[in-house]
């Protein structure tokens, strides 16, 4: 057993169980919880996500003690990983089904993907183009395909926050980071061994 522990925030997101399964499979001490104690006591925090921006934000604000989360992540620098909509909500705002306020942790706007005529739902395996080094991708070598399911993308204002991009009609940010805050547009929990490696790197190297 490992001394790393992860608090998996639960606001009814569809993929929380899959993320739980992969972390448990990898041998980490994982708790699905929103309690102040678990957020404080864990070494790492993950915010999963599937679905629409506004609905997710509402559920997050209704169920997660946001002051504790901000304190742990922004003030104390605890490693934080947002997945899919869990990454998108870090933006200033999202434009899915109306305009909704986000966490505002990473400046930018979440808007519809410009697919240039391709199906508006980007679903399936696609590769990432890495723009800067990150411990998250350690050991991946040229296995850089991941599983995506989304129609909206995060337009990141500060280009220094862009770690990797993916092309589907147009280029969009598939991994972002700012200090201890990381976000992934794809679903590492559904991305086979490459996905397992990402969780492992997050837990071990951040």
């Amino acid at each position: 057993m490992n001394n790393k522990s992860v608090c998996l925030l639960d606001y009814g997101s569809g993929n929380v169980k899959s993320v739980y399964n992969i972390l448990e499979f990898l041998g980490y001490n994982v708790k699905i919880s929103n309690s102040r104690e678990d957020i404080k006591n864990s070494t790492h925090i993950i915010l999963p996500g599937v679905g629409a921006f506004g609905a997710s934000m509402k559920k997050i604000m209704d169920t997660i003690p946001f002051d504790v989360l901000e304190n742990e992540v922004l003030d104390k620098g605890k490693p934080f990983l947002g997945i899919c909509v869990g990454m998108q909500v870090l933006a200033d705002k999202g434009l899915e089904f109306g305009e909704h306020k986000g966490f505002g942790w990473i400046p930018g706007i979440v808007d519809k993907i410009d697919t240039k005529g391709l199906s508006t739902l980007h679903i399936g395996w696609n590769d990432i183009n890495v723009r800067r080094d990150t411990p998250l991708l350690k050991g991946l070598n040229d296995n850089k395909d991941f599983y995506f399911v989304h129609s909206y993308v995060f337009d990141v204002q500060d280009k220094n926050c862009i770690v990797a991009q993916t092309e589907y009609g147009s280029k969009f940010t598939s991994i972002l980071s700012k200090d201890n805050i990381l976000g992934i547009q794809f679903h590492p929990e559904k991305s086979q061994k490459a996905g397992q490696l990402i969780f492992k790197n997050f837990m071990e190297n951040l």
Partner: protein
Amino acid sequence: MKKNRLIPVLLLKDGWLVQSKGFSKYQNLGNPVTAVKRLSEWASDELIYLDISSGDNYDTRRDDQGYENRGSFLDIIEDVSKVTFMPITVGGKIRTLSDIEKRLSVGADKVSINTMAINDHNFIQEAAKQFGSQCIVVSMDAKIVDNEHRVFANGGKDMTKFTPKELSKIVEDYGAGEILINSIDRDGKGNGYDIELINQVADNVNIPVIACGGVGDWEDFADAFEETSADAVAAANIFHYRDQSVFLAKKFLYDFKFNVRKPDLIKL
């Protein structure tokens, strides 16, 4: 670039993994969870799990009775999702929105709908509205009758009035996210895909089409990618008889420069 997919299909009958021939003969291949663990280790991009148990009065059984068939199928999916980390599609005996919800709650990412999609197109629409199109796969079983392809319902038993071309357009319009097209004629034969059938469907819709039925060797996968616009190739029987079969199939496609994900052998 978005990749084409290679998808093993696992057929489950009364809780056992089986091989099928012509939708009528079945051979028991053993424990489905062990098999899926093995397939998961390799280079699969997704898995499709189909429950083909007979039992016509299936949906009248109570969930809380732990009845053998139903209990075991959902239990198996739950076990599978604990050891496999890729998208899983689950099909068979889906009649209600609650059937879909149950499958998603035990770890399925998508469901495959067959007979209900034929009998009640509105069901596709309701399902897509509630769970999202990305989650709704319509599977169609087709067979040649009087020189024309026809769709069959109820596990290949009942001929319908639809050609695969007609039905594919309808289900797309009603919100299906993908179509799985299977040839009853080719099932278990190993003499290659029914390319004409796949083209009829794939050329007629914009949503991804998964080709299935008849694969006898790796070249058959290549043929489907070369001769049709199928987004994914699927097969069942061929993956059970060779060690590391999915890896070898993927490597074959990758080595011949098909647009597939690299066969991954990452060490953790």
